[in-house]
């Protein structure tokens, strides 16, 4: 029996920049009787990894240690948070000097990093802990005939032996979830490529170019909607794109997976952060 309470890890960006990811996720998980513990956590350490790996690992380890203290698995919505928590655990296990340093720091707050603290991404919780069959059974408004392009995102998928979400070269978890709500998952060449957001601050031209290539590819494959399960990817496809429109003929909206799932479960659009004419 999968645990029904998770330590909720929305990350830093959702509350100020993507609040509907939070409300939609709470709504869909609530429908499956999943409880979320809201103990305050800190930055996952992903943004500072460019600058200082020890700072990044310490920030991640503090969250892991809090999860250990609370005795709950972590549930992340952002793939970068997920990836960095997993990477930190990997390097802590490998590198004794790093582990000693981190535990010395955590000790001041009575915390300690232990291996084997479960970190789950929303996609795994939905596909594995709840299960695609349970989802299928609960769908009351299947998205029949809607072609959905799954944008996987990078940091939950690679490096595969560290993050262990799915097969890093040929994943299926997202497509299975799309099928479960009655929609048609699209096969498209660039589905595993980067959204471009990691360099948005540093090199906006490159960032927009990477995004445009992906959108073009998904459109060519015949997708009606692109779906993500990552804070940064969605900010790129929703917020950045709205401020810097790429030339397109056919609109290709980006939806967070819990928005599509919520719609299939018959949840009200406003909870999902959708206008009624945004629904399929």
């Amino acid at each position, binding site marked *: 029996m999968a645990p029904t309470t998770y330590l909720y890890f929305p990350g830093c960006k959702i509350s100020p920049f993507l609040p509907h990811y939070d409300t939609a996720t709470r709504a869909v998980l609530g429908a499956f009787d999943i409880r979320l513990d809201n103990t305050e956590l800190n930055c996952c350490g992903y943004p*500072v990894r460019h600058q200082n790996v020890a700072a990044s690992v310490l920030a991640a380890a503090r969250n892991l240690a809090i999860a250990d203290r609370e005795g709950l698995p972590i549930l992340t919505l952002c793939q970068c948070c997920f990836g960095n928590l997993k990477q930190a655990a990997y390097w802590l296990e490998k590198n004794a000097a790093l582990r000693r340093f981190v535990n010395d720091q955590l000790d001041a707050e009575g915390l300690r990093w232990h291996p084997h603290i479960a970190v789950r991404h929303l996609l795994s919780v939905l596909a594995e802990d709840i299960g695609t069959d349970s989802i299928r059974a609960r769908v009351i408004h299947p998205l029949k005939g809607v072609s959905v392009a799954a944008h996987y995102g990078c940091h939950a998928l690679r490096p595969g032996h560290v993050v262990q979400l799915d097969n890093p070269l040929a994943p299926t978890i997202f497509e299975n979830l799309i099928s479960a709500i009655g929609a048609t998952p699209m096969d498209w060449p660039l589905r595993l490529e980067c959204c471009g957001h990691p360099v948005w601050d540093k090199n906006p031209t490159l960032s927009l170019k990477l995004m445009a290539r992906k959108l073009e590819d998904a459109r060519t494959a015949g997708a009606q909607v692109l779906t993500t399960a990552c804070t940064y990817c969605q900010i790129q496809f929703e917020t950045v794109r709205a401020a810097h429109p790429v030339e397109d003929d056919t609109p290709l909206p980006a939806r967070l997976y819990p928005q599509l799932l919520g719609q299939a479960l018959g949840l009200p659009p406003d909870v999902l952060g959708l206008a009624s004419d945004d629904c399929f």
Partner: protein
Amino acid sequence: MLTVTVAYIALGICLAGLLWRISRWFLIDIDPASDDPSTGRRLAAAGRALLDALFSPRLFNLIRVFLWEVVLQGHLFRQDRLRWIMHVALCYGFLLLVLMHALDDWTAPVLFADYAPTRNPFRWLRNLLAALVLAGVIGTVIRHRTRNTIGHIRSHADRLVLLLLAIIIVSGLLLESSQILSPSIFAEMVEAYIGNDDPEEVAALGQYWVAEMGAALPPPRSGAIVYDPVAGQMAHEGYCASCHSRPQAAFLSYPVSRLLKPAAGLMDTLRIDIWLWTIHYLASCLALACLPFSKFFHLLATPVNLLARTAGPVAARPPALRPTRRALGLDACTHCGACNAHCAVAPIYQVIPNTRILPSEKLQGVKRQASTGAAVEVAALVEGSFICTLCGRCTQWCPSGIDLQDLWQASRRDLIRKGVSPFYERTASLSGSTALAPRSTLPGAPPASLGLTNRPETFWACVQCTTCTSVCPVVAASDDPQRDLDLTPQQIMNLMRLQLIEQALGCRMLWDCVTCYQCQEHCPQNVKVADVLYELRNEACRRRLSVAQAAATSIKKSKGPVPGK
């Protein structure tokens, strides 16, 4: 006369200072753009906003916020009951002392027909208020010393305020104790109200005051006069009782006077009471003069900010109001540290010892940038500002209602405009600067890296097959990778194989890397390509910091002390 002059000078400094500080609300702009509103427009916008608030249903909201947040300090109550008790005791204890004791010439007679500072219950009440303030000060000091959460930082400004309050209260209590004991004051009062016509009556009164009122008068010469308790009590009731109640009600200073009684003679010879009065008076005048220039200023700025906040977040206000709200926010910070306790990146401060990572200290940096533009400190502010993830928790928790989220975004825009943000820096200039960055070997210091780049084994397996380059989306997005990126991932691996780190650090590929890990996932030889690129960026950041620190040190040396330090 002199004493009144000192008080008026202090008041003058206080009023001029208040005017100056308030004028800064309309002059400072932490995010100056080309269409910057003029001071006139800012004043007009603020006036309009005030009128809008007063003549609309929002008035009720203002009244509610005033009563609940300003008067009762509900924001503190919600966050931390113990701190609320300490702050309310300190704040209202001192405020009532100012009104009923410092200004008693004006306030007390209006409220109480029979007021005299040495009557009860006023004596008792004054001690009660002093006890509240002292309890608040002591509690705050204990809290400062015992809290060990990350980023609990105290500044000299915080200590100065507590020290001034402590000096005022303690000198006041000691003054009252010395006055209870003082034979000289007794003699002066006798001369002023009774005269010396009847030495027996005065002597009887003196005996009464020794027995009942705690005075430490020298014993009468033996045999000269017989003590008559009834006469003493009658004289007391006739001359003194209308202004003097029993001092035992002064539950702090009376016990202190008992402790000091053995030294009463010496204290009277030195007229310690006059010295204590001078200290008490001057410290109070100093506090008044310091009000606009110290943490005391939050008494004005924080309530104004809390009321302004009722109009909504800064970004939702008209452009001419935003710079004013930001300047007001900078002044409304009480340096309480609630933001630091909830800051998502505070743990990073444990590894990168830059206080500007912490919101309360970053605010000080923004303030200093806005008022002085201190170039030496900008590197630290840039680092702190861009480590911040803008999660918004500091804004949610700020008991002063400062829109910190908006402040951070405005300050970032300013830093980007000034060209000092970390995003556009090229590291080519770092080549050959290895000597600037010795690897940290101190015990307990954080590991400098995961130890990939400095070990040739990391790259031994690389056969230069170019798989990493061919799967790289950044390379694929460029028509001419050599022009746009300097080096491709496989070329960087080749340089690192030869341990030519200087050449690798300067290339643009390093900073355009999207960290997608395609290279590493696809590498047939399991070279940790993406992890190596991360580690190279870490190294470049460390060298850049060394360069910035060296530059700051040379500026300090050439220009002498840093302004404002």
